[in-house]
């Protein structure tokens, strides 16, 4: 049975703002989380949801107002826990006066690797993240995507058991994103636990074993994708040409929604609608069916249903 890699109990954080630091802003409220070893765990949420606060608490960069957090059974404040973790901050900015090689060598030296091992590790991770050819270039000359790669290299340089990635796909081009996705899957194959926060829902669907959705500092949903949302057909989408939209509305009835794009119309029907009868009616009226697609509920639908309502996002919160 897999062991718990990350555990938080009642983890809360309230920031004090204002000149006299008297105005409390709740950034994270009673977070109870268990991430199992060798799991890819995604932390989702809109801006200001508490994702980065969670990561900073787990990295012991900020102190909790209440509750506790453990990594591999050790307090996040212990150096022993930090020996086994890797962390990529959001929009990483590293020592711009160092070359990529010097930077990784510096961070590697903090793990106490012997000189020869350090050199081979630095070379290995420079190659793995595809920045070996620019290893002698100062980081100030790196693009955002290249910095992100170096950031990932420093996060996994110490052979961590648990890797925390804050928006790892940020700033990457489509090829880079695919490479990072493959890298995350490779880390999982190597037995590592990966905890990452993201806005990109496609990454979550592709990568995560389990997810937690945060909004306004609270978990509003967590579990596997199958547990969280129904993946049965939710509606049917029919694309038609050769028939006016008004006529289409008459044929499809009040439950359907019709939209027009150029010479084609798109008809959205509820899953329980009698699709074959409606399609037959359209064909009789000289309409041409281009496609019929059953649509399942997507991660995006589920996410927007939970956090996308305007009233939920109306109040600005503390930084995320």
């Amino acid at each position, binding site marked *: 049975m897999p062991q718990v890699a990350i555990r938080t109990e009642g983890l809360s954080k309230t920031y004090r703002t204002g000149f006299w630091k008297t105005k409390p802003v709740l950034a994270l409220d009673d977070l109870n989380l268990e991430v199992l070893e060798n799991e890819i765990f995604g932390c989702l949420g809109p801006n200001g949801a508490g994702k980065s606060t969670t990561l*900073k608490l787990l990295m012991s*960069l900020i102190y909790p107002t209440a509750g506790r957090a453990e990594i591999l059974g050790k307090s996040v404040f212990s150096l022993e826990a930090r020996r086994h973790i890797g962390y990529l901050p959001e929009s990483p900015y590293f020592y711009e*006066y160092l070359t990529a090689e010097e930077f990784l060598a510096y961070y590697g030296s*903090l*793990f106490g690797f012997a000189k020869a091992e350090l050199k081979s590790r630095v070379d290995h991770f420079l190659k793995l993240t595809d920045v070996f050819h620019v290893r002698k270039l100062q980081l100030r000359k790196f693009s955002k995507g290249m910095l992100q790669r170096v950031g990932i290299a420093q*996060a996994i340089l110490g052979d961590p058991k648990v890797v925390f990635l804050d928006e790892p796909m940020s700033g990457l081009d489509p090829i880079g994103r695919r490479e990072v996705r493959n890298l995350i899957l490779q880390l999982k194959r190597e037995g590592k636990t990966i905890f990452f926060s993201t806005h990109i829902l496609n990454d979550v669907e592709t990568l995560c074993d389990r997810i937690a959705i945060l909004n306004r500092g609270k978990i509003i949903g967590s579990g596997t994708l199958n547990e969280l949302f129904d993946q049965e057909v939710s509606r049917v989408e029919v694309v038609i040409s050769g028939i006016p939209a008004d006529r289409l509305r008459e044929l499809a009835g009040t439950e359907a929604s019709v939209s027009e794009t150029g010479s084609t119309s798109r008809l959205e029907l509820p899953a329980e609608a009698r699709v074959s009868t409606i399609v037959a009616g359209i064909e009789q009226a000289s309409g041409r069916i281009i496609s019929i697609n059953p649509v399942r509920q997507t991660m995006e639908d589920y996410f927007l249903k939970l956090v996308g309502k305007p009233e939920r996002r109306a109040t600005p919160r503390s930084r995320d």
Partner: protein
Amino acid sequence: MKVLHIARNTFRECVRDKVLYNLVIFAVLIIVSSLILGAITIGDVKQIIINLGLSTISLFGTLIAIFIGIQLVHKEIDKKTVYSLLSKPVARHEFILGKYLGLSMTLAVNVCVMVLGVFAAILYLRHSFQVSDVQILLAGVLILIELMLVIAIALLFSTFSTPALSALFAFCLYAIGHFNTDIREYGLSSDSWVTKVVASAMYYLLPNFGNFNIISRTAHGQFISTQIYLFAAVYGLIYSLGLLLFAMWIFQKRDFK
């Protein structure tokens, strides 16, 4: 060892930020002064060169200690480099100590090269050295210890304040520290007990930079006892240690939002 790696990186940062370029200005100053003084001065040229040299070492060093010192920690937080660094197995106090030692190493190199410059100027003007010239070396060591105290002050402020405010505080403390003895004497001569207490408290609590003021005596070739050197050195190191412990405590407590 981790402390030394952080110190080494801080030293490298200073070098790459061209902090040591001040040596070029110093070199030009000393060479030009030597040439001009050698040509026009009738009195003791050596005394002027030592005075000018050591004062410049102290001035340049102080400016570097304050302006780089106030950014040591603030820059790492502002640029968020501290996020990835402290996620490594590094304790927060090791980070502070490493940053302190890194800038101290930079200033040690700076002072060493400048002191050698003063000796070179003396050799050029007088073609020989005297036994008493060893006091220039000792003055250099004391200036370095004084600068290490200034770094500790700047570093302390940089753990919780902005660079502008840190610079202001550090300069104020440095200036007050030079008039510490005068403040105490003013308090002693005052009739008000409040003034006496405040002046005494300031004298004992604030750093007394008067302890390091041996440049003029060194330039005049006056004998300076071992006790004066030892007291100033031990005072500077202990005071710096106290400030460093305070900085570590503040840094340990703070959140990196």
